[in-house]
């Protein structure tokens, strides 16, 4: 189902193509566009019983649905406008409260005037009045309302209005959160919900002119605002999920996006009154179709992004949030409504039943004739009967709808469980991943070929070492190492030579989706021949990848472990096919390697610059200072160790957190030689609250123990340290 991208605020539901539009002349008679006048329902050939039966079906299928849709449409738009009005009312109430409070300091009368004026403005139900004016004071409004199964102010259409309002609020809260990028938006959605909720309550209370009281009512209004804020924030959290999902979609593809969207639908279904929804299959179906469509989320994001991002940026910059709520609500509502109607079109198509027996062209021609007689009392009575019959059909389908809904909910539940389990397995630290799984799980396999090949190259090289036995060994040993087939299934350890590395990289590329014909191992077959990989990309260019050759005096197996730029990954036109990188003397592969920086930043291998190179630069620039010696003096190792283990530990860090932390600090504060004198171990102990982690640090003359329950204990005497450990009942 196609979505609707929207930018305009103006929205006339009667321009939607669900029925033919009619003019009303000065005598209140309906005419078609050709000015042909019809006065009587009976003038149409209705003499035959079979035609009458036929008309009954047509009426069922089109007329009542058409009129009901028209009323439904305005109810939907009213619901959308209600949100806008609530936001405006809430803002006025807040403004009035602040203004009157401030004014009362110097002029109580003026403050009262402000309060009265505020109440009058809020009390006016602009949307309700507009509906009333249309349906009760215009002939076309009256005719549509009468022909509709449900009148505009019926309980059912109020339900539609409420559903629409809810859907708009949901869209609004979601869009705000999406547009503001996640959790920051949850608070904003909550604040918006406060304004909308307080506006809603303010209008209801201030309409009672005799009993209204600004001060007393404002308490209730604020409470209502708070309640709605919670609700909007909850929806905002869903928006946060959508926000994440949109990012995920960009990063990992559509599947994950759908799983998150389905979770959102599940949340929505949980939060609405399913029974009242199920009373109207059509609206229910529209709602289902709307929220199943990712375009809905994207459209709401699209229409609100400009509005919100500008205001949000201004908010961050100045602390003032000046969003044009009215425009935003209208635009969000417009997007929501159009998607809702797209859902409606789909729902009509799903219903099918009323249409399947008829030839569509004949049916439309006769329907047009029928509609021209809409003023006939007979026809209106007849339509009432049809409408009643239709309502009976709706009721009869109630159970079916409930079953469908339950099934949908179950499917969503199952899918969400599946996705959650999948995520659990992927994220579970208890699962020992094979080397291949480990590499693949660290790469985005849904990205383009070049990025994927680059990621696999870096991740493989981080994990593999060169097999030094190949150089040190005898000829027999060399032949044995070189000739043995290497795959992830048979690999022992992580030492390889050029041939083994090429076979592993080839396996990863094919496993990740490259066609086997795209990946070739290059080089000769003699035990002394070098080997590397050449990949033919779909864009016609090639990648030459060689991690085991010394190019510009370095090999990428080492470079990748240190976070350096690479020399052995070359993207080139096909004229380079077959070339060994080490032999390309005319190219500066070191410089070419640095051109991967942008991609390496995007995949997290490099930050601002290649990490290792940046640190190396920093060492060269700053390591000759005397400040370190001034601070730590002669016995720097012991002082530094003492300094480390006496760091203040926040109470929210447990023994596991400190284990990670002290290891990190050890690497920063000590040379590899000094660091080897310090042992930092993780152990566990049973407490009343369960198992807890304990960090144990031991260095020359300095010992420390840390856990949540024991706190930190520092010792300079080894025996005291051991005695204390023995009281803890540690286990590994």
């Amino acid at each position, binding site marked *: 189902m196609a979505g609707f991208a929207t930018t305009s605020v103006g929205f006339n539901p009667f321009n939607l193509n669900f029925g033919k539009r009619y003019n009303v002349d000065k005598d209140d008679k309906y005419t078609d566009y050709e000015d042909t006048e019809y006065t009587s329902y009976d003038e149409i050939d209705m003499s035959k019983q079979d035609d009458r039966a036929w008309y009954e079906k047509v009426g069922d299928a089109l007329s009542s649905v058409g009129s009901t849709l028209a009323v439904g449409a305005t109810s939907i738009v009213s619901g959308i406008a209600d949100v806008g009005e609530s936001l405006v009312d809430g803002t006025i109430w807040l403004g009035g409260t602040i203004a009157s409070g401030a004014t009362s300091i110097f002029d109580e009368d003026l403050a009262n005037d402000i309060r009265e004026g505020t109440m009058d403005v809020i009390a006016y139900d602009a949307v309700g009045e507009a509906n009333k004016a249309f349906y009760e004071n215009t002939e076309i409004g009256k005719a549509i309302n009468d022909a509709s199964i449900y009148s505009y102010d019926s309980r059912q259409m109020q339900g539609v209005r409420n559903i629409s309002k809810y859907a708009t609020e949901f869209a609004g809260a979601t869009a705000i959160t999406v547009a503001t990028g996640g959790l920051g938006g949850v608070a904003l959605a909550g604040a918006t919900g406060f304004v909308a909720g307080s506006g809603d309550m303010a209008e209801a209370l201030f309409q009672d002119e005799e009993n209204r009281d600004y001060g007393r009512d404002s308490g209730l209004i604020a409470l209502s605002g708070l309640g709605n804020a919670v609700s909007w924030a909850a929806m905002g959290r869903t928006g946060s999920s959508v926000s994440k999902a949109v990012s995920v979609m960009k990063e990992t593809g559509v599947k994950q996006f759908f799983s998150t969207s389905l979770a959102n639908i599940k949340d929505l279904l949980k939060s609405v009154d399913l029974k009242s929804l199920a009373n109207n299959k059509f609206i229910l179906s529209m709602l289902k179709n709307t929220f199943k469509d990712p375009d809905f989320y994207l459209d709401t994001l699209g229409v609100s992004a400009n509005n919100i991002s500008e205001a949000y940026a201004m908010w961050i910059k100045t602390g003032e949030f000046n969003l044009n709520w009215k425009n935003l609500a209208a635009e969000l509502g417009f997007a929501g409504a159009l998607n809702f109607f797209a859902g409606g079109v789909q729902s009509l198509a799903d219903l099918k039943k009323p249409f399947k027996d008829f030839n569509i062209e004949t049916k439309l021609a006769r329907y047009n004739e029928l509609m021209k007689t809409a003023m006939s009392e007979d026809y209106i009575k007849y339509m009432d009967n049809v409408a009643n019959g239709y309502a009976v059909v709706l009721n009869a389908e109630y159970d079916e709808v409930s079953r469908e809904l339950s099934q949908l909910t179950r499917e969503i539940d199952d899918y969400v469980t599946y996705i959650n389990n999948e995520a659990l397995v992927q994220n579970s630290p208890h699962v020992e991943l094979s080397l291949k799984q480990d590499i693949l799980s660290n790469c985005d396999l849904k990205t383009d070929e070049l990025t994927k090949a680059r990621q696999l190259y870096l991740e493989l090289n981080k994990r593999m070492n060169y097999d030094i036995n190949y150089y040190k060994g005898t000829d027999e040993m060399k032949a044995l190492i070189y000739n043995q087939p290497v795959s992830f299934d048979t690999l022992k350890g992580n030492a390889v030579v050029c041939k083994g590395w090429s076979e592993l990289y080839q396996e990863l590329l094919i496993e990740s989706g490259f066609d086997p014909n795209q990946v070739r191992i290059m080089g000769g077959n003699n035990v002394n021949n070098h080997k590397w990989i050449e990949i033919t990309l779909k864009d016609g260019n090639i990648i030459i990848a060689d991690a085991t050759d010394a190019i510009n005096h370095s090999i990428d197996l080492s470079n990748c472990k240190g976070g350096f730029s690479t020399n052995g990954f070359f993207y080139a036109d096909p004229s380079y096919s077959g070339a060994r990188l080490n032999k390309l003397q005319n190219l500066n592969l070191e410089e070419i390697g640095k051109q991967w920086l942008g991609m390496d930043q995007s995949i997290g291998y490099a930050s*601002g610059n290649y990490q290792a190179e940046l640190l190396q*630069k920093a060492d060269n620039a700053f390591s000759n200072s005397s400040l370190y010696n*001034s601070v730590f003096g002669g016995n720097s190792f012991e002082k530094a160790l003492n300094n480390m283990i006496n760091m203040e530990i926040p109470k929210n860090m447990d023994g596991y957190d400190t284990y990670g932390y002290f*290891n990190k600090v050890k690497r920063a*504060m000590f040379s590899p030689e000094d660091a080897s004198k310090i042992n930092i171990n993780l152990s566990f102990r049973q407490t009343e609250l369960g198992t807890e982690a304990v960090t144990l640090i031991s260095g020359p003359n300095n010992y420390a123990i840390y856990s949540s329950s024991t706190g930190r204990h520092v010792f300079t005497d080894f025996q005291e340290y051991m005695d204390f450990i023995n009281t803890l009942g540690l286990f590994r």
Partner: protein
Amino acid sequence: MKELDRLKELIEDKRKNIKTEDDKEKLEIIDELMKNDNCFFNLNVETAFGILDFLGVKPEEALGLYNGLISPKNYMQNTPKQVYYQENNKTK
């Protein structure tokens, strides 16, 4: 984080008093490093003190400032959970 704020203040002070091309290059390295609030965990301690020295930190202030930059609080605040777990131990 007051130590991080203090460091940023020192960097800005230094920026206003750049005198040589060498100073400018050093400041560029610091700017690059400071894209990561946890950068002092990755720096060799002597390099870290060299940076503080370059920024004009006196010996009596240096240890407190350095300790703050590599404090557990800074570590917990600025280390993304995913990285944190990967770096620490895969068994958690």
